[in-house]
């Protein structure tokens, strides 16, 4: 059952929303500046309600079922936090008012800064970055500003092949040239690899830890020592923080700068692509470089403190995705220290349980102690002429969102599974059963997989056509 596009519906003169009555006379306006207004369709309220209700029904969310998208931490998004973020007194605060009018919201931001520092083991936090990639950008801008403040010119940055995909682009935006490093056969970066690459032109390293294979970079302290002694800085991509809350301390690992993804570890909803939030945390010495303003507390209460002369400056017109920050704050307040740690422990338990149960069904390229996610490949299915893509699409017919596929690049045909802690064992068992059924089908009737999905509103879409003949608007 299809739903037309908005502008294929409606009739001129309908209205889907109340209009305030004119209380004042119409004012004259210069005709040469006047436009005609955009060609939007006119709809009634029920048209709009049905349109978006139907659209929503073609979407799969965490509330619909398991979403084992590796590296994305699709955990349960508490409804309570949505309501709290919509508290009218909070949702109406204008960001250009004076601090005295904003004490409540400043308090939330101040506390969240403190909480994130405590969770990472780092010293200072800016909440401004609106997403993980902007957090990375903030980190790289801090790198650049640091070396600039020291009068040094360093142009290279080391990035292992198990890091997140945004890292090279973030580094490049700040003028750094990424230098790829190969991880070892155990899926970890070796100290020697770093030592060999580190030189006086190298600004530092961007590590994801645990990395995208779900493996903890056990050599991280030694690696950090090598980088630091070469005059470089260590960037830790904190997107996988869900594995190690209350367990690993980024500061002790030797990390200087780290961003967090509140929409991953801290349970804020992904919203079909955003808004997220990517706060950046730093060690004390880098605090002056953080983007401003940040919230400080003194006798007068909470206030916004602008960035100093070394600050990289603003990254957002105001304070980042504030309504996302409120949700993350609420999540941390709901969990407390014990439950945050337990969440990580259970996330890792779930991933290891899945790995154990799927071993043999799917090829496991790195059979290492892993944390919150595990990476398989389609190697065992090559005989049947079935690919990772086919397996993923067939899983859809079983009611699951597929895992992350073809990432990390270090594993050909990767199938990267992150269950998160909010899945219970029964659900994991059902997922295992579904995946095994798909793999059995791959043997018995591979065409089923190649034709999949068949139970969705649309079947496999022609992405090549979309790119060759772009139709980007109606």
């Amino acid at each position: 059952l299809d739903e037309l596009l908005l502008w294929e519906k409606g009739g001129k003169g309908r209205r889907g929303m109340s209009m305030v009555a004119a209380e004042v006379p119409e004012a004259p306006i210069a005709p040469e500046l006047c436009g005609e207004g955009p060609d939007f369709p006119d709809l009634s309220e029920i048209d709009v309600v049905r349109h978006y209700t139907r659209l929503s029904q073609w979407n799969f969310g965490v509330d619909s079922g398991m979403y084992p998208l590796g590296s994305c931490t699709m955990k349960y998004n508490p409804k309570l936090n949505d309501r709290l973020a919509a508290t009218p007194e909070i949702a109406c605060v204008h960001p250009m008012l004076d601090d005295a009018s904003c004490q409540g919201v400043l308090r939330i931001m101040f506390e969240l800064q403190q909480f994130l520092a405590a969770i990472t083991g780092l010293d200072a936090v800016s909440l401004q970055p609106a997403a993980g990639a902007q957090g990375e950008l903030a980190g790289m801008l801090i790198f650049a500003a640091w070396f600039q403040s020291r009068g040094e010119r360093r142009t290279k940055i080391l990035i292992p092949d198990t890091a997140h995909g945004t890292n090279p682009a973030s580094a490049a935006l700040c003028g750094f040239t990424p230098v790829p490093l190969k991880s070892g056969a155990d899926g970890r970066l070796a100290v020697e690899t770093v030592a060999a690459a580190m030189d006086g032109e190298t600004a530092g390293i961007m590590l994801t830890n645990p990395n995208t294979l779900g493996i903890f970079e056990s050599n991280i302290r030694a690696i950090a020592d090598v980088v630091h002694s070469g005059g470089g800085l260590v960037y830790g991509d904190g997107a996988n923080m869900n594995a190690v809350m209350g367990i690993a301390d980024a500061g002790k690992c030797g990390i200087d700068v780290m961003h967090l993804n509140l929409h991953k570890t801290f349970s804020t909803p992904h919203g079909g692509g955003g808004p997220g939030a990517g706060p950046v945390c730093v060690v004390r010495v880098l605090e002056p470089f953080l983007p401003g303003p940040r919230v400080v507390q003194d006798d007068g209460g909470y206030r916004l403190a602008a960035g100093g002369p070394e600050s990289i400056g603003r990254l957002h017109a105001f304070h980042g995705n504030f309504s996302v920050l409120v949700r993350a704050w609420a999540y941390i307040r709901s969990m407390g220290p014990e439950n945050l740690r337990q969440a990580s422990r259970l996330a890792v338990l779930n991933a290891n349980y899945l790995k154990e149960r799927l071993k043999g069904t799917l090829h496991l390229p790195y059979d290492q102690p892993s944390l919150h996610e595990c990476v398989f490949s389609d190697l065992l299915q090559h005989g049947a002429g079935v690919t990772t893509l086919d397996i993923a699409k067939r899983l859809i017919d079983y009611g699951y969102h597929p895992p992350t596929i073809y990432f990390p690049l270090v594993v050909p045909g990767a199938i990267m599974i992150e269950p998160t802690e909010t899945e219970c064992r029964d659900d994991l068992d059902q997922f295992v059963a579904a995946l095994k059924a798909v793999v059995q089908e791959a043997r018995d009737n591979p065409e089923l997989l190649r034709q999949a999905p068949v139970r969705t509103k649309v079947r496999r879409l022609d992405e090549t056509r979309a790119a060759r003949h772009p139709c980007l608007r109606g």
Partner: protein
Amino acid sequence: MRYLPHTPEEIREMLAAIGRSDLDDLFISIPADCRCDGVIAVPAALTEWQLSDLMRDIAATMTVRPDHCVLVGAGRYHHHIPEIVRSLAGRSEFLTSYTPYQPEMAQGTLQGIFEYQTLTARLLGLDVANASLYDGASALAEGLLMGLRIVKRSRRVAVSTAVHPHYREVVRSYLRPTGYEIIDLPFGADGRTDLSLLQGIDGLAAVALQSPNFFGVVEDLARAADPVHDAGALLVTAFTEPLAYGLYRNPGQDGADIACGEGQSLGLPVSFGGAALGMFACRGEFVRSMPGRLVGETVDCEGRRGYVLTLSTREQHIRREKATSNICSNQGLCALTTAIYMAALGGGGLRQLARQNYDRSEYLKAGLVGAGAELVFGGPTFNEFVLRFGDDFAPVRQRLQERGIVAGIELGASYPQLADCWLFCVTEKAMKRDLDTVISEVRP
């Protein structure tokens, strides 16, 4: 804990299945010297009811309340938001889904964003809009970086000083490490940008103007386009109040190559400035230089219409360091929300609503000028304007605030030359009786 489903028995059994004796065993790969000391220093867990009470207490500390009349814009605008916008955008299938990497399971998000792109392109009068960026400020920074990519070998951009000061700060942050030069363009007595400087500048990739600008003044974009293009640069227009295009000509009509700004006005709460929405559109020829996600229409294997993320060869996960931007998400739900709002408002409604903003704003402007205030800039405005008062306005403003009206903000912090000048904003939420109160307080 209600978010953690595991019973002790399940944990035991799962540990047994993977051959571990306890949960700590799972972390043997983490060296001792990387471990946390003690428990995380965050407060103890609160129940749902304790947390709700805490939020109620925090809300109670807020002195500017939802029923106040806030005559402040400057980048965020108080507009009415229909209940359907809230309730539809809050449907959990939208809210709890990820970036639509598996299009067969995400046609809702994808069609919704395709429609958002369409409405945005129509609103801004340009050929193509992306799936959104973080906010208006970073959208402008990305717009200028895009100009620098398109106009090769240029290393300069010019930015009007009448662009929102925070936007200019973000532009500086983005451009600083790569050494691009930013040239400030002054504004004149009418509050419009003075473009006479442009002639003397070499290697200019882009010129950024905001319209309506930070002072609420509508720039004469139509006359700006030629000199900018003559200088070999792209015209990048910013905006903070897209509602203006319900009444005024849109950037595309006036020759803009790229238009970028903030979409909060279109159905998003002010919410201390976020979540925000960076709207971004450009002429069709530049689409492959665009930053951010794009949704395109295609067909499935049975010929049914469907939508996918497309042109991803521009993006970081394919092009890595050669990408057009490092962006890998969008403000998906914010974009969807504004699309719902635009659908509910419709073209006719947008025009009416823009009129309401304009008329009310002109009413207050005329009333205050009649009460003795001086209009600082002579140019036409939409729903914001700048005034200077003969007497000290601060005590008047304080009295008004006690009566539930927040009357403007002072501009001296951002523009020392405009100390004691006040920027007012009037939207459809401002009732005539509140405007009359302001006028009568000001009248000597």
